[in-house]
């Protein structure tokens, strides 16, 4: 057992965990923040994407102890004061989700994408989202959502 401390969605958290605990396990099992999903076991699907110190990270590829002292944001921390983040709102407005399982990871990746590319082309969006698998939407409306969000975010 080892102690790990970090900030998650603005709150200071700390727990005793096995050293091999993945960040995604820590988030889901210790913190019970179940919006971050697990869709694979080879770091391919992106369902587990969160932000660590502002960058998107697949939380299944990182040990919780590697996030010691970090500032972590999960899907639950994206909306502020009851206001949806523009990316969340765009996914709803443009039907960017169906079953919703990939959606938290997709939104977290998309937020990071727009941060780095404020005015992304369709091609950039498609390339950038290569690490997030959605089986439901065919991506058409996800691309549309990201584009719309980027515009609303003032890109």
């Amino acid at each position: 057992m080892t102690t790990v401390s970090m900030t998650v969605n603005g709150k200071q958290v700390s727990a005793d965990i096995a050293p091999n605990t993945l960040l995604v396990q820590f988030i889901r099992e210790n913190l019970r923040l179940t919006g971050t999903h697990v869709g694979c076991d080879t770091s391919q699907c992106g369902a587990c994407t969160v932000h660590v110190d502002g960058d998107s990270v697949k939380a299944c590829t990182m040990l919780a102890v590697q996030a010691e002292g970090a500032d972590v944001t999960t899907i639950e921390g994206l909306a502020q004061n009851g206001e949806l983040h523009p990316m969340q709102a765009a996914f709803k407005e443009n039907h960017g989700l169906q079953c919703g399982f990939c959606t938290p990871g997709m939104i977290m990746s998309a937020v990071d994408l727009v941060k780095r590319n404020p005015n992304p082309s369709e091609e950039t969006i498609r390339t950038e989202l290569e690490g997030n698998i959605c089986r439901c939407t065919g991506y058409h409306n996800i691309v549309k959502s990201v584009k719309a969000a980027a515009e609303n975010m003032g890109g």
Partner: protein
Amino acid sequence: MSVENGIGASVRRKEDQRFITGNGHYLDDMNKVGQAYGYFLRSPHAFAKIKSIDLSAAKAAPGVVDIFTGADMVADGIGGLICGWGITSKDGSPHNAPPHNSMAVDAVRHVGDQVAFVIAESLEQAKNASELIEVDYDVQTPVTNIAKALAPGAPQIHEEAPGNLCYDWELGDKAAVDAAFANAAHVSKIDLVNNRLSPNPMEPRAALGEYDMGSGDLTLYTTSQNPHVARLIMSAFLGIAPENKLRVVAPDVGGGFGSKIFVYAEETTTIWAARKINRPVKWTADRSEAFLTDAHGRDHVTHAELAMDNDGKILAFRVSTQANMGAYLSTFASAVPTYLYGTLLSGQYKIPSIYVEVQAGFTNTTPVDAYRGAGRPEATYVVERMMETAARDLGMDPTEFRLKNFIQPDAYPYETPVIMTYDSGDYPLAMNMAKDMIDYSGFAARKAQSEANGKIRGIGTAAYIEACGIAPSAAVGSLGAGVGLWESAEVRFNPTGSVTVFTGSHSHGQGHETTFAQIIADKLGVPIESVEVVHGDTSKVPFGMGTYGSRSLAVGGSAIVKAVDKIVEKSKKIAAHLMEASVEDIEHDHGVFSVAGTDKQMTMGEIAFAAYVPHNYPADLEPGMAENAFYDPLNFTFPAGTHIAEVEIDPSTGIVDIVDWAAVDDFGNVINPMIVEGQVHGGVAQGVGQALLEGVIYDEESGQLLTGSYMDYCMPRADDLPNFRVATTNTPCPSNPLGVKGCGEAGAIAAPAALMNAIVNALGKDINMPATPEKVWRAINNN
């Protein structure tokens, strides 16, 4: 009067709020106090006899609560998994359905077959303990390929299925077909492989079982598309618990595509084990287990021949298919290559006679069952690859050849030679619209331009038909189904005028919470925010058959309409009483009840309140405002349409670029166009996946699964797909009250044929799916 958020409006989805904020409740998000964790030890061999299993070291491992094997379940009187559709072979014999225990008893028959269930305080402890189980295997030679499994001398997988044959089935008039071929001016032939796929909903399967020792009640939370069917099978055939003592709950489910219809070994074992240890037990598949155990789809090998006269009119169609069932017969597996396949081989065409024969057999692979489209994509692939090949053989434009042979819009009801009665449609309209959308006539110029750029361009069409709205109970019963395929609904007003709709359908991405609420908003004038749709819990909703086969709106929606009709009927009586008029004079319009010829009116909300506070109320009427209904469809529905794909291939790499896609679908009336478009996008994406990227591959010698992760099984990603151009034609379905046909599977049905036809058109030669860059490059370079 029109209604806000009613039928036909692209209402934004009610369910999205919880999903976009991370507040969905998928199965693995749930935990119970005192829960233990289950882990399956699985067979590393494709085929082996089990000589012995030694659990002693594993049972002594830290944290282990208990370990069970197949023998324990058998000793407890638990039955095997069943197949719910009986197919009769040509010779009149019933299909062979060998025993299928939840965990192996004397042999394992595919890599990943369940051997033992280890339950421990933590998942890690369960995994660690599983490594201490000693299984003595007598390894046998496996067979994974269907043609080889059905050939003489193949390894015998089940004693009960000689020659590995499940059934040898036929449909149609063989003599008439033979005669037509004997006199035909032209005959075209084609050989096709429909590649095996892994459905891959993004949420892996999971189960959480709970036992209440006091009441004897069992609750299974599970990733199911049809919780009541799961309960029925687990009660009636496995003997887990009587139906009244077993509750099955399917909460938010992260995609299904067919793979979560079936009753699986893991869910069954989990709920059984929860009672054994008297503690909640949770099992969640990881992706590797999903690849090994989620029922696969497709896996057909087909030879087809088309007979034509001198004018290019079709005379007869002959199809012979071998279908791989995998190691065991899954829940509805037998129906997929027969009644969901052979019956669709008339496509959109007037074909005087058709004959199809299907041999289904067992192999040492994961069981195969329904996957998005289930039989109908396989049928469309055969029909539409055949049509394009025939047109090319005749030197005709493939769309002209189709238009010449289409069933005409005035021909309904149209009876096909393969026992379907098409009820409505306009096939030429959809095809001509799709051709316009993609500028079909401009293709030659675009091809020349591509050629000038050193690229190869191709265009391909698929005019598909599917039978949805599954299904009239009497019809499917006569064909061997063990269940009826009606649907249930209850519409329950609350005293304050809000509504709860209970449906036997199940949503796992389809957006029922919105679409069904739109029906209530439209019919009863209740604001959509005041309508709650409840599904997926056998203790809450009336017995229902669940969601698959694009049936939810056509069958489940119709059940809701029937319940609404009863609500309206009762409300008219209350309104008549309160407004002192006769019932015949009450008119109803979107939730407003008025007395004809007067300005007296009452709203649905006022009437519902009066029904719950019946101080002034008709003497002969029961209080309350809740009605339920069961709807058994009169016929299948027949969504149909044309998809045209245009591709550009880089001959130096073999990479296929989809440059355009036009989809015109006839889904009948549309409740929510936004959701329907989304279903088409998703379906096409899965079809593109099949045609270009996906394929389950086994090593033929060892029977090992070579495509067991996202590193090896190529899922379509954002940069593999184009934007799609989507339109609908809307010929209302005459057999159900909403006039709807179903839209969930169309894309997956149309896309593989359209895309492969485009690639074959570009290459000038046949290749099989998936058309990977390597395969395409080899075809171009004759390598």
